[in-house]
């Protein structure tokens, strides 16, 4: 009788609770090939069986702690869900989140079902047969700024922007993906600094001082150059190397520019002049180089905001969605 409170365990033992978590997922989504792997999850192509539509599904596994589903996970997924409802065209839409528990309840798997895109920007830049025309570069860059502007307007710092987390479709729409590591931020808070791929890391992150949304702008600055030149701007293998790579190209920050509270002193590095623009930014047009320089300011507060970037001359007359450029299939 329902009024008698039976514990879940008894019910379960009596076989009166069905827990078809995994079954549910597999009844609804047919899992196909792996399309990507990241530090935290595996991404599959799936078919939504009721509709036949293809999606990308990211599976993340974590241990269930004493306090159940970690608060950080709840925070992240809920901010994702909120963003998803607002539906920005340069943000990869989250359709559904599912979870399942395995290994006797010790492991929690979270599945996020998202729009499937054709490539990530890393693969795209690697596989296109030649440099992209100037306009195509601008259209891609503009959409990255739009997506990031939307995130920042919603108080989300991505923190892990890199070409692998920027998705692109045949029709040249760009979608920012992977908020796995983003956190709702307040500009004062400082978080753990162990997560951003080094090449797109700003000095304040590398030097472990507090940071804010400007770290994303730095990352875009690096990507701007990469979109034109198809090679990373600063590519260090370790944090120390990454700092050196940055300083050799942009010049050693002045004492005023040196991040307050940095774990390493400025005096440890040799003085270095800044490279001229053409060596730094290769085939980028001047307006693009100007914007990249603004994004790569050593002082975070001086870096442009995404909203500002969209107003610069670099994007004047750039139409949002160009007639699809005939592009050789790269997959």
């Amino acid at each position, binding site marked *: 009788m*329902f*009024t008698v*409170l*039976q*514990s*879940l*365990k008894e019910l379960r033992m009596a076989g*009166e*609770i*069905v*827990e*078809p*978590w995994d079954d*549910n997922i597999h009844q609804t989504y047919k899992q196909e090939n792996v399309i990507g792997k990241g530090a935290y999850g595996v991404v599959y192509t799936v078919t939504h069986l009721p509709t036949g539509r293809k999606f990308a599904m990211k599976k993340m596994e974590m241990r*269930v702690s*004493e*306090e*159940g*589903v970690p*608060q950080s996970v*709840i*925070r992240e*997924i*809920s901010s994702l*869900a*909120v963003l998803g409802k607002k539906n920005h065209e340069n943000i990869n839409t989250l359709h*559904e*989140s*599912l*979870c*399942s*528990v395995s290994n006797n*309840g010790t492991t*929690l798997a979270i599945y996020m079902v998202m729009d499937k895109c054709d490539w990530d920007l890393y693969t795209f830049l690697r596989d296109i047969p030649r440099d992209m025309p100037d306009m195509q570069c601008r259209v891609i860059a503009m959409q990255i700024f739009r997506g990031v502007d939307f995130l920042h307007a919603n108080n989300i710092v991505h923190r892990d922007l890199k070409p692998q987390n920027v998705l692109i479709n045949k029709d040249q729409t760009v979608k920012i993906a992977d908020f796995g590591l983003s956190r709702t931020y307040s500009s004062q808070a400082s978080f753990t600094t162990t997560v951003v791929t080094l090449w797109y890391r700003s000095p304040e992150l590398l030097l472990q001082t507090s940071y804010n949304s400007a770290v994303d702008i730095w990352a875009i600055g690096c990507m701007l150059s990469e979109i034109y030149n198809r090679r990373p701007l600063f590519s260090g293998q370790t944090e120390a190397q990454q700092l050196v790579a940055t300083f050799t190209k942009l010049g050693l920050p002045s004492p005023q520019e040196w991040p307050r509270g940095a774990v390493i002193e400025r005096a440890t590095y040799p003085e270095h002049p800044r490279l001229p623009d053409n060596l730094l930014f290769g085939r980028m047009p001047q307006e693009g180089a100007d914007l990249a320089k603004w994004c790569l300011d050593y002082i975070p507060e001086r870096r442009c905001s995404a909203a500002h970037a969209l107003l610069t001359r670099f994007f004047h007359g750039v139409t949002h969605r160009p007639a699809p450029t005939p592009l050789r299939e790269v997959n």
Partner: protein
Amino acid sequence: MSRSRIPADWIFEEDAIKNSPSRKAGMNERDELKLKREAIDIMKKIGAEFGWKLNGATGAACVYFHRFYMLHSIQEFPCPTTSLSCLFLAGKSEETPKKCKDIAQNALKNFSHIFRVNLNQLMDDVMSMERVLLQTIKFDFTIDLPYRYIIMYANDFKSKRAFDAAMVSDIVCCAWPLVNDSFFTHLCLAWEPQIIAVSLFWLAIKLRQHEEINETKWWEEHVAELCSDKMETICHEVLDYYTLMNGGNNGGAAASG
């Protein structure tokens, strides 16, 4: 687990609410409401002990709870454990986390007649239910509650309409507990929080005898196409609840409490 379709905004047709999984499994309306109210009461009391607000974690927990039983039956998952898991989850999603142990201990202390298991067992149950809950509410943790709209309308009254501040706060003081008590009803499943807020504000204006304000149809700038009939129906859900509580006494008195 029943696989009925969930509307994207979690606002259900009256029919769906009347044919909830518990009802379909054979429970009558009275028992369903009674069991749910008992559990809402648990949430309110424990929430209050934690210093949570109804306009915060407790309110979110109540909404999770109502949504949960649109997909599962009470026969399948008893209300009391679900209510604790709702508190547990809402604490985390509203950034006022409480340890599972604290919640379970509190429940055992205050509701020993309902929870007849030991602490470890109860904690286990709350944890298991959390996962069922997560799955059911589809990670939709961010809950919009009517309170912020009440505040908004009150501010509008003071600034745009230059109404007397004391009068406005008197109306708010009447509307607020009405919203508190709306959690005992199915309103949050049937109406958007703005509509609930407008209706209960409208009722509070009536109860406080400022009918002339309602004659201005002040709500029209906030929600489109809301007629007084509809508001009447919404308010009656809450008033009926008082009638039930007071064995037939009038609702206005309870509303001021």
